[in-house]
C-alpha cells in the first residue's frame, strides 16, 4: 500500500462516517418528537453533509481519477464504503438515535482533537472546523441521555435497551489496520488505540450520571475496514443513491 492509497482510504473513511450518519439523521426530518428536535437533528445532518462534501472532494483529489464528491457518494456500492457500522444502524426510537449520537460524537471529539495536529493540511483544517460542530452535537446527546435516563421508567428502559443494542458496534471505531499504521508513521492519522480509554471513561461517566449500566460485553462487531457492513447499509444506499442510479449525471 502506498501513502497515496492509504490517504485515499483514510479520507474516504472519515467522509463516509459523516455521509452515512447524515443520511440516517435526515430520516428524522418531519418525524422528530417535536419541532425543536426536528431542527436539531436535521442541523446535525447538515453539519455532517458539509463535512462529508469537503472530505470526499479531497479523497477524489488524492485518488487523482477525477472523481467528484458526488461520484464518490452516489456511485459506490456498499463494499466500497468504509464507514463504521454504527453509523449505518437504523434510527430506532429517539433513545436509540441519541445513544448512537453519544457514542459517535464522543469518539469524534477525541478523534478530531488529535487530527487537528495532522501533518495533512486539509485533514487538520477539517478537524479544527468539525470539532466546533461536534461539541454541540455531543452536548445535545449528553443532555438527552442524562435526562431520559433519569426520566420515567419507560424512558430509562429505552435508553438502557439502546445502549445494550448498540454496544457491540462501539469497538470498531477504534480498529486500526495497515492504512492507519502507515499514516500514523507519517504524522497524518490518529492513534485510535490511544483514544479508546478516553472514550470509555467519558461514556461510563455520562451513563452513570444517567443511571444507565455500561455493558460489560467483550464481543464486538467488525468488518467495515474491509468494506463489510450490516444489512442496513445496502438499504440506506438504495434510498440515497436512487436518483443518480436511475438518472446518471442528473443535476439541479
Amino acid at each position, binding site marked *: 500500500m502506498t501513502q497515496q492509497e492509504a490517504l485515499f482510504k483514510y479520507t474516504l473513511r472519515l467522509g463516509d462516517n459523516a455521509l452515512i450518519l447524515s443520511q440516517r439523521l435526515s430520516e428524522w426530518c418531519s418525524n422528530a418528537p417535536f419541532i*425543536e*428536535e426536528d431542527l436539531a437533528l436535521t442541523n446535525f445532518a447538515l453539519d*455532517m453533509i458539509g*463535512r462529508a462534501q469537503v472530505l470526499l472532494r479531497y479523497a477524489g483529489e488524492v485518488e487523482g481519477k477525477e472523481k467528484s464528491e458526488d461520484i464518490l457518494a452516489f456511485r459506490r456500492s456498499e463494499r466500497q464504503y468504509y464507514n463504521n457500522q454504527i453509523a449505518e444502524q437504523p434510527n430506532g426510537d429517539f433513545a436509540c438515535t441519541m445513544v448512537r449520537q453519544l457514542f459517535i460524537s464522543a469518539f469524534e471529539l477525541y478523534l478530531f482533537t488529535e487530527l487537528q495536529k495532522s501533518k495533512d493540511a*486539509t485533514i487538520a483544517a477539517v478537524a*479544527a*472546523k468539525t470539532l466546533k*460542530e461536534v461539541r*454541540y452535537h455531543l*452536548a445535545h446527546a449528553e443532555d438527552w441521555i442524562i435526562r431520559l435516563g433519569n426520566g420515567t421508567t419507560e424512558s430509562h428502559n429505552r435508553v438502557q435497551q439502546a445502549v445494550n443494542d448498540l454496544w457491540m458496534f462501539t469497538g470498531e471505531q477504534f480498529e486500526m489496520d495497515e492504512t492507519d499504521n502507515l499514516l500514523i508513521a507519517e504524522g497524518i492519522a490518529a492513534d485510535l488505540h490511544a483514544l479508546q480509554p478516553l472514550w470509555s471513561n467519558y461514556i461510563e461517566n455520562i451513563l452513570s450520571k444517567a443511571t444507565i449500566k455500561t455493558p460489560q460485553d467483550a464481543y464486538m462487531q467488525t468488518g467495515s475496514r474491509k468494506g463489510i457492513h450490516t444489512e442496513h447499509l445496502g438499504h440506506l444506499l438504495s434510498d440515497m443513491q436512487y436518483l443518480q442510479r436511475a438518472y446518471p449525471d442528473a443535476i439541479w
Partner: protein
Amino acid sequence: MVATTYSKEEILQLLSAIADPEIPVVSISEIGMLRDVMITDAGCEVILTPTYTGCPAMGIIEADIKALLHENGIEPVTVTMVYTPAWTTDWINDAARAKMNAYGIAPPKRSSCGSVADAEKHINCPICNAADTTLVSRYGSTACKALYKCNSCKEPFEYFKCH
C-alpha cells in the same frame, strides 16, 4: 483582463456590499467570511472561509460575488474556500454585532471556544436587554442560531451561537 484596473482594496470595498443571506443586515466582510482578494494575471481570486461546513448560504454568496464583480467588469473571477484557520464567531466585528442585535439576533459572546454549556448562559434579550432569558432550543432556523425566550418581555429571539 479588467481586474488590474481595480486595486485589491477597491475590490474588497465592492464586496463589502454583499450581505449574508441568512442575516441580511450584516455583510460577508463584517462577519469575517471574506478573507482576501488576490489579483493575478489569471484574474481575480476571492478567498472565503465558510462559517459552517454545511452552510447552505455559501453557494448563494459565491454566486452573488461573481455577479457583482461581473457587473463591474471584473473577470474572470474564482472563489476559493479556505478552511484554515477555521472561522470563529470572534471574527464578527463590533459594528456587525450591534447590527445583529438591532435586527433581533443576540450576537455571540467572545472567546467562543470554551464549553458549550458556558457559551449558552447569560444571553441578553436583544429586544429589551433583560438578562433573564431561557434557552428553548439549541438549533433554530439555521445551524448557526439557537432559540431563546426572554422571561422579562416574553418575546422569543434568536442567538447567534459561539463557534
